């Protein structure tokens, strides 16, 4: 009864915010409503007896990833999408049709598959974290390690990607760096590099680059 209520509320919330994510022209709003979606999904996770996943969802997604998004949005000063030329109507139409088709197919499958399927009542053992941990570090240990490796690689890749191209000749590197520092955009990128790639040395120009970002904002 209460559970159904909670489900309905947060499902509606998730859907609404998801729509906002997709439809809103201002990336900031999209991002924020994505946060709402994530949190309501986390609540649904709790309903489904996965509090740990829910916590992680909030912790990682809303706490870190989306913050990163916001950061980049501000960094690149991604304004509203200019309404401008209405090209790609075919694309839009095809996308909607395809999504609709997808919905129909999947929906039918689900309905005929689990139309009246009742879930077994939650048992303590299923919810308990130790069991989860046991499986995570038992059967899936290798996967776990691999994911760790993946993250490391990702960090390195991000550093390389977003780092400002190093001056060719180290000898006059200083001078070149200064020259680049004058240009606002590279400054912005440098900040981005600093944070996106979590690289300390990128940070020290935040103060210096106030002008550019402010002007952009």
């Amino acid at each position, binding site marked *: 009864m209460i559970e159904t209520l909670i489900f309905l509320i947060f499902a509606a919330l998730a859907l609404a915010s998801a729509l906002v994510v997709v439809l809103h022209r201002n990336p*900031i709003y999209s991002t924020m409503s994505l946060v709402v979606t994530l949190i309501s999904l986390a609540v649904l996770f709790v309903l489904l007896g996965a509090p740990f996943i829910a*916590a992680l969802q909030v912790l990682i997604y809303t706490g870190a990833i989306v913050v990163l998004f916001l950061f980049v949005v*501000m960094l690149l000063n991604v304004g509203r999408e200019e309404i401008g030329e209405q090209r790609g109507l075919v694309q839009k139409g095809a996308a909607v049709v395809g999504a609709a088709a997808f919905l129909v197919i999947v929906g039918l499958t689900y309905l005929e598959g689990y139309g009246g399927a009742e879930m077994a009542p939650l048992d303590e053992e299923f919810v308990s974290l130790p069991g989860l941990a046991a499986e995570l570090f038992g059967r899936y240990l290798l996967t776990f390690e691999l994911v760790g490796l993946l993250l490391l690689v990702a960090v390195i890749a991000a550093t390389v990607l977003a780092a400002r191209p190093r001056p060719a000749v180290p000898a006059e590197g200083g001078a070149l760096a200064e020259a680049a520092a004058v240009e606002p955009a590279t400054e912005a990128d440098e900040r981005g590099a600093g944070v996106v790639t979590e690289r300390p040395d990128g940070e020290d120009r935040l103060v210096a680059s106030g002008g550019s970002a402010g002007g952009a904002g």
Partner: protein
Amino acid sequence: MLFELGATAAKLGIFLVILLGLFAPVMVWVERRGSALIQDRPGPNRLGPLGILQPAADALKFFFKEDVTPALADRPLYLAAPVLGVLPALTTFVFIPFGPTVEIDGRAVPLVVSDASAGVLLFLAIASLGVYSLILAGYASNNKYSLLGGLRASAQLISYELAMMLAVVAVLIPVGSFRLTEVVAYQQELWTPAGMWNAVPQVVGFFIFMVAAFAETNRLPFDLPEAESELVAGFHTEYSAMRFAAFFMSEYIAMTTLSALAATLFLGGWSLFGLPEWAAAALAGLVGPYWLWMGLLGLFVLFFKVALFMALFVWVRWTFPRFRYDQLMRLGWKVLLPLALANVIGVAAATLAGWL
């Protein structure tokens, strides 16, 4: 059913009252008197004895000040930001236990609002939402200083969250659970019969946690997001009146909750070597039910410890100079993080060895 709801509501009420009605205002006063003390000046001493009424006056002032919204601000976000700051800070308190599980006419009632199995995680998760208030405030104000403040805040908070969480993990390893109640229970049996505080074996983690806590609450020496000498007032440059107050409050409440967490993780939370239980039993012998005494004493002990931390916050704020931004990042990434990792490994090893 109703009983549980009632109990939960009651516990929630207690916290709201204490936090909003007691700590935030008192902290304002403490802050100002403390700063005065440290800087060897009287501080606010007119209103009431020792200017104890000063916070009320401040609150009044905030209420009646004009609430300005910049013309080019992103209005909805601008209005939402302060609220987003207060909410998580308030919410997190539901995971802090202030007493053991007691019997109220036959029903077992844990003296904690929510004893979720993933308590600590949820605490940190919700706490991590606080950053949005800063970012959005910085962005919505449409002001270069605010924006920079927001950016700095996001970077800083993300960076120090890692170190903080690792410190927490180190604490949780020997406990073997995410429930804060179990953390307290663990400390009650650690080593001595009367128990021992985690702060002793986990001194490194304790240190890391405290430093990170300073950064997470944007307090000096890590108040880069609002460094007045660089960014006017950082992310809340444009705010005024009650919204400004809301930022203030959220900062103090965040301090309080983090202090409570620190107390629970490292200083045994509500427990004090069995004294509260003993005293509660004794008092219950005289008058009133045991659970009431227990709750009160637990709250008292907990908030005593919290108060200690608050004092530390104040003391540090008015003692240390502000870091430079690169220094901040370097400290976070090149000192605290590796240290925390090493700490985790060490603690894990010690746990395997059976010392913890």
